[in-house]
């Protein structure tokens, strides 16, 4: 099918493109921007006047909860949420049940996801069997099955020798390790940042050194092994500073931050709001500001949704017992726009953190509008305000700290492979 998207403001950060023009799509690919391709006849026209047309978003962390955790969410519900959020490619962590530690499971997930003709799913393989932190998985086999990288999700990897060997083995094949730096002992039992709010509310705390101690191990071992490492969901000012230094030394380290942490701090926990029970914990306002500064100077490459739908009952518990996580796929775009507006950052720069940059980290050809590329697009109304409510979210998880907030920026169309998979 040929589609002409007319008069939208086309923003393609990777190609530094920002102009009101037309996009022509033929056979699932971007045919051209601006000029009508020879012999092009549109079967469908989309009037994008007043709208922004950008590459489909690339999300580095979205839990789809399949296999095994369908009571929280299903592929169907969460892929519906992804396209409603303009997300056309996503990486899913391996902490499903069973965990993604065998090629068959990865192939099944890829097959089931592909069958929906929706968002492209890139599984992160388990780094260790059962995510138990003891034995390495068959990384090369898992890679052949479709895993783009390997990690432990939020499960601990308490043994530094295992981590060292995992880095050596992964780097043998050129695979990237996705690690969330957290020392298991220092974080043990903690549910909130070790600061004013945890002290006031009497919540068990996760100190900043839980992140920085683990981070120092990762950096030192990456230096020694030459392994590529992607740091997932960094949370502290000190962690940002260490990452900045490591990158300046030329280490092959990339980094992301969760959209929640770009906006919120420990203060948002208020009176035990279990929607603010997140992993890693929301830290101080100073940490949040440092995360923003890290995003701005490129220490942090990308913003991810850290999508983690949780069933309602699991949140209706005292704060520490409530399951951690928040739904996020549909909030990634508006929260990125909010950050851009607050920091007066041009859209082309802001959108790069959820398109071209995460695609580069994933190592997939996505997140740009170069002619010939797959026509994965997000078309959104930057002026549309909407209120985050259970009824306005497609995700099965209705848990987010932003419930009741009014956010700006609503997806109107999502295209994948040149097909309109979502229209508002």
């Amino acid at each position, binding site marked *: 099918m040929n589609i002409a998207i007319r008069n939208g403001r086309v923003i393609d950060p990777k190609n530094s493109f920002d102009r009101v023009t037309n996009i022509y799509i033929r056979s699932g690919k971007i045919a051209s921007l601006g000029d009508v391709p020879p012999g092009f006849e549109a079967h469908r026209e989309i009037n994008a006047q007043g709208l922004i047309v950008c590459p489909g978003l690339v999300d580095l962390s979205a839990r789809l909860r399949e296999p095994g955790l369908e009571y929280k969410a299903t592929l169907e519900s969460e892929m519906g949420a992804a396209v409603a959020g303009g997300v056309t490619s996503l990486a899913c962590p391996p902490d499903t049940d069973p965990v993604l530690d065998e090629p068959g499971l990865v192939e099944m997930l890829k097959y089931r996801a592909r069958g929906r003709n929706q968002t492209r799913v890139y599984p992160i393989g388990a780094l260790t069997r059962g995510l138990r932190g003891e034995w390495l998985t068959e990384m090369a086999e898992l890679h052949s099955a479709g895993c783009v990288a390997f990690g432990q999700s939020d499960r601990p990897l308490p043994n530094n020798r295992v981590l060292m060997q995992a880095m050596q083995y992964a780097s043998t094949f050129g695979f990237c390790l996705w690690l969330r730096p957290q020392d298991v002992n220092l974080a043990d039992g903690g549910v909130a940042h070790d600061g004013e709010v945890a002290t006031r509310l009497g919540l068990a705390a996760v100190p900043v050194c839980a992140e920085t101690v683990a981070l120092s191990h990762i950096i030192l071992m990456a230096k020694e092994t030459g392994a590529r490492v992607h740091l997932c969901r960094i949370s502290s000012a000190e962690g940002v500073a260490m990452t900045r230094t490591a990158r300046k030394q030329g280490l092959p380290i990339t980094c992301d931050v969760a959209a929640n942490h770009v906006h919120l701090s420990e203060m948002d926990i208020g009176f035990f709001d279990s929607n603010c029970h997140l992993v890693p914990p929301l830290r101080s306002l100073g940490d949040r500001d440092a995360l923003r500064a890290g995003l701005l100077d490129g220490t942090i490459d990308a913003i991810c949704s850290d999508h983690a739908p949780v069933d309602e009952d699991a949140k209706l518990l005292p704060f520490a017992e409530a399951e951690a996580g928040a739904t996020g796929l549909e909030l990634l775009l508006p929260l990125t726009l909010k950050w851009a507006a607050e920091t007066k950052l041009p859209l082309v720069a802001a959108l790069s953190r959820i398109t071209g940059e995460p695609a580069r980290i994933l190592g997939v050809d996505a997140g740009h509008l170069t002619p010939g590329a797959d026509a994965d697009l997000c078309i959104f109304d930057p002026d549309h305000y909407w209120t985050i409510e259970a009824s306005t979210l497609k995700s099965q998880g209705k848990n987010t700290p932003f419930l009741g907030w009014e*956010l700006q920026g609503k997806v109107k169309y999502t295209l994948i492979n040149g097909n309109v998979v979502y229209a508002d």
Partner: protein
Amino acid sequence: MTSTRAMSNNPQLNKNGQLQHLLTTEGLPASILLNILDTAEPFVGVTERDVKKVPLLRGKSIFNLFFEPSTRTRTTFEIAAKRLSADVINLNIAVSSQSKGETLLDTVNNLSAMHADMFVVRHAQSGAAHLIAQHVRPEIHVINAGDGRHAHPTQALLDMFTIRRCKRDFHNLRVAIVGDILHSRVARSQIHALTTLGVPEVRVIAPKTLLPAKVERLGVHVYHDMAKGLKDVDVLMMLRLQNERMLSARLPSTEEYFKYYGLTPEKLALAKPDAIVLHPGPMNRGVEIDSVVADGKQSVILPQVTFGIAVRMAVMSILAGS
């Protein structure tokens, strides 16, 4: 952009600014705290006379929901309710529904359906009382009888009552809270109550392993040395050191703790000569307090227990009237 997260709405107050629930001493105006203390005064007389009952809560049902074992606190609430002529139902939920997998809110909803008027809640998790208060029917009042490390407001109020009885005025006092601040819901509630009532100097004294991060942001001065921290103090509030803290790396031994932080007559002598000593009980004699001090003339530990009943009667009668 607006947030509906309501730091501004105090979940303890109804729309007329009256006390709807008692969950924490934090964020309550001094007038409400003082009203509780004033209301408790005549109840002290009730507890001392032959016929110890007043009919204020006749026909009301008060459910003691203890998700965590407790004998003393539960008993004092039970006595307080009975002296107000309420019907009291004690539920030791730690060993019933919860072990069958029923969630906290299921339990609460089931009990609400039995037409409770008031829940007295003790739970091992910080925030449990808030969660219950957010989900009960609007005519039900919740009293927090201790949630995790967060709050124990009636204990703090009975401490304030005791201090006021002995010292009369809060505005010229120097108060030291000694011991395991980190794990103590009592300490947190004491700190908020003392600062709200206008105590100009509240100190906390503990080794660094027993102090939470940024504790000074609660409005207290931090000391690690008893000799400095107790100097010129009017009120000493000792905390119980729980035995399980010994199993962690927080403290090397009870002996060393007693040597440096236990209240002995020698250390007490550093405070003002008329200083009073409080303890929420149960005491570990020889760990945080020397028996000579606990039973000495500056100790007000037993009057605290008596006043505890009066203060809990006051809280219940105020809630029933709001």
